[in-house]
C-alpha cells in the first residue's frame, strides 16, 4: 500500500478472505521483500482459541492492544495499520482526514468521528472522485503535496446502508457488529484510485463536513485561524514536528479555501462538490 509496504501474518482464514476481497487490486510482493511494517492478527492462544475465540494484533512480534472477538479480525487489522502509520511515519504530517482528488486538486476533509466524513468520502469516490484516503492524510511538508494509501473505507452503523443504497455496486465486507465503533463494514476502494496510488495531489480546499439530519446543503466560509487549530488538533504528529509543523500547517491553510459544509443528503453533496473546484459552488 504505497507509500508503505505491510507484511501481514495470520492464522485466521476468514481474515485472508477479507484481505483478498478488499485488497484485490493492490500488488502482492514476495515475502522476502522489505516491509515497513510487520503485523500479525492471530487467534489468541489457549482456550480462547476455541471458546468464543479472540484475535490479537501484533506489531513487530509484540502484542499491541487488547484482544477482540475473532470476527473483528479485519477491522482490527485496518485499525492496527492506521496506528502503525500514525505512530511511525514522521516524514509526513499525518492528519486525521479524508482526502479526495479531481483534476489534480485535493480536498481535505478533517473531522472528528461522527461528522459524516467517511460516509461523504465513500459516496464521492463512487461519483468520479479519486480516493487518496478516508482516514489518514499524509502531508509532505517540503513538497506541499498530500499522499494517500487508497485503502478500504471504514463505514459505521447507518452509513453502511446509506452508502450501499447510494452506490449499489460497491463491494463491502459483511457487517461486523459490536465493535467499539458500533457495527462496521469496509468498502473496497475503487480500482482506479488504487492504480493511481503513487500520485500525490496539491491541496486546494479544506472542507469541514457537518452532517445534520434534514438540513439543506450549506457552504460557509471557515476562518483560516480556526481551521489551523482544527488541523493541528486532528494531526497525530503535529507536536512531533515542532516549529516546522506550525509553519507547515500555516502554509497548508494559507493555500486552501476553507469552508464548512452542512449536509443531510448525499445527492445534494455530490452536486455541491462537483462545483467546488471550478468555483461554481462557493460559500
Amino acid at each position: 500500500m504505497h507509500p508503505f509496504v505491510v507484511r501481514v501474518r495470520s492464522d485466521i482464514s476468514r481474515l485472508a478472505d477479507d484481505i483478498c476481497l478488499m485488497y484485490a487490486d493492490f500488488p502482492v510482493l514476495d515475502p522476502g521483500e522489505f516491509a515497513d511494517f510487520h503485523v500479525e492478527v492471530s487467534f489468541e492462544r489457549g482456550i480462547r482459541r476455541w471458546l468464543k475465540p479472540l484475535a490479537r494484533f501484533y506489531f513487530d512480534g509484540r502484542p499491541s492492544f487488547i484482544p477482540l472477538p475473532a470476527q473483528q479480525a479485519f477491522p482490527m487489522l485496518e485499525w492496527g495499520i492506521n496506528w502503525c502509520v500514525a505512530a511511525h511515519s514522521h516524514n509526513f504530517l499525518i492528519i486525521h482526514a479524508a482526502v479526495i482528488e479531481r483534476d489534480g486538486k485535493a480536498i481535505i476533509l478533517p473531522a472528528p468521528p461522527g461528522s459524516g466524513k467517511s460516509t461523504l468520502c465513500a459516496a464521492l469516490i463512487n461519483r468520479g472522485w479519486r480516493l487518496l484516503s478516508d482516514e489518514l492524510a499524509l502531508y509532505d511538508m517540503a513538497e506541499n503535496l498530500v499522499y494517500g494509501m487508497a485503502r478500504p473505507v471504514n463505514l459505521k452503523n447507518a452509513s453502511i446502508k446509506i452508502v450501499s443504497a447510494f452506490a449499489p455496486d460497491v463491494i463491502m465486507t459483511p457487517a461486523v457488529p459490536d465493535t467499539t465503533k458500533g457495527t462496521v463494514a469496509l468498502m473496497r476502494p475503487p480500482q482506479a484510485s488504487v492504480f493511481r496510488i503513487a500520485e500525490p495531489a496539491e491541496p486546494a480546499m479544506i472542507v469541514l463536513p457537518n452532517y445534520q439530519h434534514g438540513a439543506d446543503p450549506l457552504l460557509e466560509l471557515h476562518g483560516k485561524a480556526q481551521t489551523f487549530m482544527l488541523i493541528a488538533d486532528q494531526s497525530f504528529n503535529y507536536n512531533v514536528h515542532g516549529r516546522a509543523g506550525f509553519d507547515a500547517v500555516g502554509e497548508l491553510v494559507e493555500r486552501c479555501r476553507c469552508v464548512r459544509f452542512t449536509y443531510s443528503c448525499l445527492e445534494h453533496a455530490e452536486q455541491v462538490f462537483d462545483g467546488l473546484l471550478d468555483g461554481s459552488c462557493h460559500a
Partner: protein
Amino acid sequence: MRNTTLAFRFFFEEDAVVAYDEMSGDTHLLSIVAREIFETLIDSPVSVQGLKDLLCSRFPEDVPELVSEGVDVALVQLLGADLIQVVVD
C-alpha cells in the same frame, strides 16, 4: 510575562492569529489585540488601563469601548494560555 518567544501566523483580513510558543511547543489561537498586547509587554509590564489607553491611541478610528472590551478579552486569552501573569503593586 513568561519568558518565551511566540511565532505568529496571520491570515488576510482575519481578527484571529495563531501563535507557536517556542519554549513549550504549545500552539494558541489569539485575537489580534492579544498579539498587540503580548508584543507591548515584551519590553515592560503595563497596567490594564495603560494597555487600553495605548491601544486606543494606536487605533483611533475604533470606538474606545470596543477597544477596551477587546483588551479585556485578550487578557483572558493570554492569562488562560499562561503567556502573561498579573503583577500586583
